[in-house]
């Protein structure tokens, strides 16, 4: 292959490094207004009254909106969200009012003059408390919310979704087990910390149509949800998305777009822009949900897992419109990449008065794999088995069934190969070494898996146009959020049509009026699904080229070949046409024209995916499973709890690396995020549920200096036959399971089990102290 499998530079590199790439924040429109939000200082309180009469008097203020102005609910899966808080506030930071003004200075001044009278209510600040029968309700009207049939909210409780998976007979399985091990695990809420905070512009037009410019992952989801909630037909809504400065899931679904659109209407149909500050990004924008897990594993002495009983509880925060799918995804993958014959899994998405949760790269999986991969290590130690051997003994290989009863396909990825690869490269099998009295070096590994968490009907499509000079335009709905999918898609077009990548432009923005449909840019689904759609679109283009060429060259279509921007008769390259000569119709010397502009299209939906049985969770949720493993060597200072990651090894079975350099880039970036989330990131609250570290001074993320000195990336390629050139997704996968690998290394170094994240130096130190 000439283009697929090659490490070409990403097609958007020049634009991005020179600063010429367009982002939502760059967009300024004539007559544009700016909005600033008044945020709730209470985690849970009744709004008794709002007085903004003084604020309206500030020069430059156009209008002020409060919740009652916008009596609509929005949401991706559960319609539970208000545009602005109505009747009560549900987290510290919930927008209560919005000021629209000619400039931000006026908006800021006005915000400070709004008086809100609150009546504080008892807040729910721990997800375990939220499940107690007498817990205050975050959503009293849960029963009235519209929701997707795939979800199961329980009115009268704080449970936004209950997902259950049942397989085999758990009681029997535990009876056959020699050892039963039960543990609990915790993880705090975290922020996506995108380099570009949430930014959007909305304009309500006088004819009732709507225009949106936004930093978002999913323009079509925004259009659909907005149309549904406001009762506006979709052809009247346009959503424009330029390059996105990082999404990581936080810009999936729908966020502040409805707010700016409605503010625009209230402000006299002028465009209204919202740009969050970094601090607002922490407090107002959605977060990754918190997590509590309890796992009970039954195992035989010779290391076979017989049964598992699993409870996952997700702290969804104030709203769970997207969050419900996180619990569901964790539920149907709950065992990790292992075969468990007897299983009872329950995964709850639970409302609290914390900031609202949403998708986060690898959602559900980063959380539960922390629990599963720690549990695997603990169980292996209990039965005195090498943890690698234990994992391999229970590896979910092709032919075995997943928690939902899906038989893993013959051409699925291979978890055993991933585990063996990282074990070999990290040099598994040597005991921890004391290099000074207080410094120990030790190794740890952890495995992972994930399938796209999406509804069975999630679709993708592509359009390829041949320009008059023989160059091509590829248009796809996947947004460029940094992941690089569009470069791989351009390589696929180049391969299919045998044209150099430089002659293919991927349209650098998404516009729902022009761009072909894509459900969302999430779930590591887009290379696979857009990839398939692009192949089909390219073959459609090819077919149209051959149709015209066969008439001009007077040979049947199957005697023609397309190569190097020409179409020619096989074995007779001298009988040829340049692609540009048929791009807009072929013109004979006398002016007669045949054919016409060539526009190829293709679509893709997953094959034979199903909704899951509401009672047992059985069914086919997975487009593809990607497997991987991580291994670390750490140096631990037992006196201070400081750890250094000396070496990191990552292996993923990606099926086929369309662009190995980009795969490696995704893996390195994902692992740094994984280390950061595992070791430092954490929403810290005071006793009233107020976040006390909403800034980058005290919410620490990894920087260049925190990247491991040595990182070995192993790309394994067992192709999946229905993937584009055999490829599977890896974007999210790369950030899974580094934290349990680190904690497992700490366990081997000291015998201390740490089951709560983050693995900050101080937390490690505390855990070591408690043991002594």
């Amino acid at each position, binding site marked *: 292959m000439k283009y697929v499998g090659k490490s070409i530079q990403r097609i958007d590199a020049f634009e991005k490094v020179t600063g010429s790439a367009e982002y939502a924040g760059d967009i300024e429109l004539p007559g544009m207004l700016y909005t600033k939000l*008044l945020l709730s*200082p209470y985690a849970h309180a009744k709004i008794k009254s709002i007085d903004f009469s003084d604020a309206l008097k500030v020069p430059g203020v156009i209008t002020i909106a409060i919740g009652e102005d916008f009596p609509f609910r929005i949401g991706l899966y559960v319609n539970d969200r208000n545009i602005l808080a109505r009747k009560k506030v549900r987290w510290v930071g919930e927008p209560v009012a919005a000021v629209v003004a000619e400039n931000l*200075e006026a908006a800021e001044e006005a*915000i*400070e003059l*709004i008086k809100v009278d609150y009546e504080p209510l008892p807040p729910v600040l721990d997800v375990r408390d939220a499940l107690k029968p007498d817990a205050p309700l975050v959503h009293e009207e849960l029963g009235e919310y519209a929701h997707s049939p795939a979800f199961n909210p329980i009115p009268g409780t704080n449970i936004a979704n209950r997902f259950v998976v049942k397989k085999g007979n758990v009681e029997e399985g535990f009876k056959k087990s020699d050892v039963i091990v039960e543990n609990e695990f915790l993880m705090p809420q975290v922020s996506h910390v995108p380099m570009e905070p949430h930014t959007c512009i909305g304009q309500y037009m006088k004819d009732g149509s709507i225009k949106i410019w936004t930093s978002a992952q999913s323009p079509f989801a925004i259009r659909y949800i907005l149309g549904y909630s406001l009762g506006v037909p979709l052809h009247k809504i346009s959503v424009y998305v330029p390059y996105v400065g990082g999404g990581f899931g936080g810009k999936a679904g729908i966020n502040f777009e409805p707010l700016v659109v409605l503010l625009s209407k209230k402000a006299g149909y002028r465009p209204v822009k919202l740009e969050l500050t970094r601090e607002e990004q922490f407090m107002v924008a959605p977060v990754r949900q918190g997590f509590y897990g309890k796992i009970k594993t039954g195992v035989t002495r010779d290391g076979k897992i017989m049964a598992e009983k699993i409870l996952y509880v997700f702290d969804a925060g104030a709203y769970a419109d997207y969050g419900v799918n996180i619990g569901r995804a964790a539920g149907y993958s709950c065992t990790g990449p292992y075969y468990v014959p007897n299983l009872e899994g329950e995964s709850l998405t639970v409302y609290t008065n914390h900031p609202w949760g949403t998708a986060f790269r690898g959602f559900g999986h980063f959380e539960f794999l922390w629990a599963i991969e720690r549990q695997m290590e603990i169980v292996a130690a209990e039965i005195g088995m090498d943890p690698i051997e234990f994992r391999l003994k229970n590896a979910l290989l092709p032919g075995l069934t997943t928690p939902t009863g899906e038989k893993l396909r013959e051409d699925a990825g291979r978890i055993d190969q991933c585990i063996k690869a990282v074990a070999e490269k990290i040099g598994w099998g040597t005991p921890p070494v004391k290099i000074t009295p207080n410094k120990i070096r030790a190794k740890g590994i952890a495995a992972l898996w994930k399938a796209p968490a999406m509804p069975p009907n999630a679709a993708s499509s592509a359009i390829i146009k041949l320009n008059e000079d023989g160059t091509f335009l590829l248009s796809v709905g996947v947004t460029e959020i940094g992941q690089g999918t569009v470069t791989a898609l351009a390589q696929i077009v180049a391969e299919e049509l045998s044209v150099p990548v430089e002659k293919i432009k991927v349209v650098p923005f998404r516009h729902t009026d022009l761009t072909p449909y894509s459900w969302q840019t999430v779930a590591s689904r887009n290379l696979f699904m857009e990839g398939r759609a692009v192949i089909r679109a390219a073959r459609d283009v090819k077919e149209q080229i051959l149709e015209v060429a066969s008439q001009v060259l007077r040979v049947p279509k199957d005697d023609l070949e397309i190569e190097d921007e020409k179409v020619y008769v096989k074995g007779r390259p001298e009988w040829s046409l340049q692609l540009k000569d048929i791009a807009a119709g072929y013109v004979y010397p006398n002016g007669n024209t045949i054919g016409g502009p060539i526009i190829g299209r293709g679509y893709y939906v997953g094959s034979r995916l199903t909704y899951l049985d509401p009672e047992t969770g059985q069914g086919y949720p997975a487009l593809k499973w990607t497997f991987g493993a991580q291994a670390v060597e750490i140096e631990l200072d037992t006196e201070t709890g400081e750890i250094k990651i000396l070496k990191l090894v990552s292996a993923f079975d990606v099926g086929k690396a369309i662009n190995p350099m980009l795969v490696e880039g995704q893996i390195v970036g994902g692992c740094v995020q994984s280390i950061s989330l595992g070791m430092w990131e954490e929403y810290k609250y005071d006793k009233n549920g107020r976040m006390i570290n909403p*800034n980058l001074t*005290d919410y620490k993320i990894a920087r*260049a200096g925190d990247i491991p000195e040595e990182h070995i990336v192993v790309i394994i390629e067992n192709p999946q036959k229905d993937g584009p050139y055999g490829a599977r997704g890896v974007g999210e996968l790369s950030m899974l399971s580094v934290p349990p690998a680190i904690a497992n290394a700490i366990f081997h170094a000291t015998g201390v089990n740490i089951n709560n994240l983050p693995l900050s130096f*101080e937390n490690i130190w505390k855990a070591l102290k408690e043991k002594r």
Partner: protein
Amino acid sequence: MSQNKNINLGYINLFNTHIIPVKFNYHAPQTLEEALNLLNKLKDKARVIAGGTDLIVDMKLRRKEPEHVVSLNKIRELDYITVDSLGVKIGAIVKLRKIEKEKIIRERFPALYEALKSMASIQVRNMGTMVGNICNASPAADTAPPLLIYNATLTAKSLNNERKIPIEEFFKAPGKTALKEDELVTEIFIPYPPQDSHSTFLKITRVGMDLSKVSIAVLTKFNGSIIEDIRIALGAVAPTPLRIRRAEEFLKNKPLTEENLKIVQEIVAKEIKPITDVRSTEWYRREVAKVLVKDALMKCLEEEGGR
């Protein structure tokens, strides 16, 4: 523009960065004399800016809302590093990064060099100044412990006066110094440490580039196995960076035995007054301070040739 007095929503707004919403007058004097004249006139209505890495952040958070900002950046006469037979003099607007790159700093003042290298990011060090770091008087100021062990002296000037302030007398409380409102620190003088002494700087942070949870600078001079000169200073463990005189007095003229080390650790733990905040707990800070004292002393001992 209104001042941020609204308690009802003050919580959020205290955390949020703003476009600096208050009007202020910006002064960029060309000479020191002009600057001192301005301060003499404006007194506490003015804030001095050099690198701005602290002041601008505080202004965006509305923690400080000065009516006047006096920039020192155009005053070329404050941009110097001079080396003579007694030590090094550093002007008020010399960037941290420039000091760090100075050969004499690396060779003769290793604790200061290590501290500079560990501060923030290169980008921030290209902006910030050492005089600024000191005048901001954060308990966690990384250059403070090294300057304390090197017995640095600050030159404070006002329109009609000039005085020398030993660094140990400079810090009064978090954000508070011995400076009068019309005074400017124009120079830091750092005398050479004693011949054959060793000094080092260590700190504990959350991530690689971060504010210190605990920082320490130690200087030792051995005479055989006996400690002849000893200086210990810590940061981020009390309202101000501080010398631990009691520990120094204890160790002086004694060998650095395991037993003495333990006693010094306990003295340090008693002398410091760490707090629990969003970055760390009092417990951890105190315990880790003990570890750092030991590590820093052992490092000096190793450099001496190990005993």
